[in-house]
């Protein structure tokens, strides 16, 4: 059954990415540490007034996530490029979208873990009180992470193989993530407060639409960009 074979490939790639990254010395720990460091620097740059920090908290968490996320995405293709493993990977039978799907799963796991750590640090450093509606906030964050991972993985598949990959990935990715950034931060801020204008629902729907549109678009486009 072709679908089972493909799903097997997706799981194999996700498992391989997760295993190699967790075993690599400077892997996930480095990226998560960087995210928290950026958060601390933002706190220093925007503070020390407690009110200012509280207002800036959501934005700071997302910025720290974005900047470290770029590293994580480049790394997910770095592992293939370092040892020349991309060529054998492309020579296996089966559709290419399985490679994309496997990497998406692995990256989603990593970035979710990282976001959890950064949020915890943000709550502490920026003085957030956790509201009753925190599950909704988690849902918004999860949807934001999906958008980030989908586009980040997609652009990294190209940027990691070009010259100036450190510049090219953020340059391509960040303008595209503007809707995610606006939606996630505005909805989160609303939910942290009273959400007087009931805007969180509208922003959540925007995020869902965004995620669906780009999930489909990148799946279709990946086939064309993964070849050398």
């Amino acid at each position: 059954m072709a679908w089972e074979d493909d799903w097997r490939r997706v799981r194999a790639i996700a498992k391989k990415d997760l295993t190699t990254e967790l075993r690599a010395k400077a892997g996930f720990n480095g990226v998560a540490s960087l995210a928290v460091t950026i958060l601390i620097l933002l706190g220093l740059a925007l503070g020390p007034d407690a009110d200012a920090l509280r207002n800036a908290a959501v934005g700071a968490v997302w910025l720290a996530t974005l900047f470290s996320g770029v590293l994580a995405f480049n790394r997910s293709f770095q592992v293939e490029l370092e040892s020349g493993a991309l060529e054998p990977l492309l020579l296996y039978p089966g559709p290419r979208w399985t490679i994309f799907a496997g990497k998406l799963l692995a990256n989603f796991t990593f970035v979710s873990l990282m976001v959890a750590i950064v949020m915890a640090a943000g709550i502490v450093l920026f003085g957030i009180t956790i509201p009753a509606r925190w599950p909704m906030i988690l849902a918004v964050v999860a949807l934001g992470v999906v958008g980030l991972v989908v586009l980040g993985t997609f652009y990294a598949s190209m940027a990691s193989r070009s010259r100036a990959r450190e510049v090219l990935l953020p340059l391509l990715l960040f303008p595209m993530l503007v809707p995610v950034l606006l939606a996630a931060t505005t909805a989160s801020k609303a939910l942290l407060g009273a959400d007087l204008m009931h805007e969180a629902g509208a922003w959540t729907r925007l995020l869902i639409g965004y995620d669906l549109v780009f999930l489909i678009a990148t799946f279709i486009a990946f086939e064309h960009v993964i070849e050398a």
Partner: protein
Amino acid sequence: MSSKPDDQLMLDSGLSSETRTAPPPRTSVLFGFIAFAALIAAQVFSILTSPAEGDMGHLQKIMYVHVPAAWMAFISFFVVLAFSVRYLWQKRENDDLLAASAAEVGATFTGLTLMLGMIWGRPAWGVWWVWDARLTSTLVLFLIFVGYLALRAFVDDAEQRARWSAAVGAIGAINVPIVYMSVKWWRTLHQPPSSPATLDPAYTMGLRLNAIALLLVTIYFIRKRYEIARLERAVEHLAEAAAMGGK
């Protein structure tokens, strides 16, 4: 080095018929003249016939370039989307060159829109920049174009460059309405929009004329840029034929 004529070189080299391209198109100089003349005429007409606006006086007339320029940027982006998708579908090199030409022209018009918006804004609002919906969306659009052009600059292999920019161009173009919508929501919930494009009926005629004239200019620019790109590719193909056919 072989002394065969170029055509013979290309045939001998066994290049597929797709790479043996038709001669690059010639953009009519007359068309260029007409386009620019139309633009000048439309500008003169608008400046002379429109009344001074209440608050901003004659500064409002900057809209006659600013607004059409924004529209041209969006049209260019749509051209990029159309030909990027077509390239991914049919892999015809000319589609990639046309998309890239439209992207360059679109980036220029986006930059122009931003500059004019800021020039209008300084006397009107007292500051060089406000985070209003239209300006901010245009800025993000500009960055998406810049990313597309940067990608092209960093990839050397022509076929890979075409595939990658087609994917990036198409996906970037899909995001344009989403960016616009999200920035608008972000602003309108907190502040009413303000920009120089107030559509008082006294201005619409001039606006339409300028839009049509600028459209002609845009078409001329894109075609000219495309012609240059085709010439560059033709030179590369000759070099290819020489490398393959010569001894």
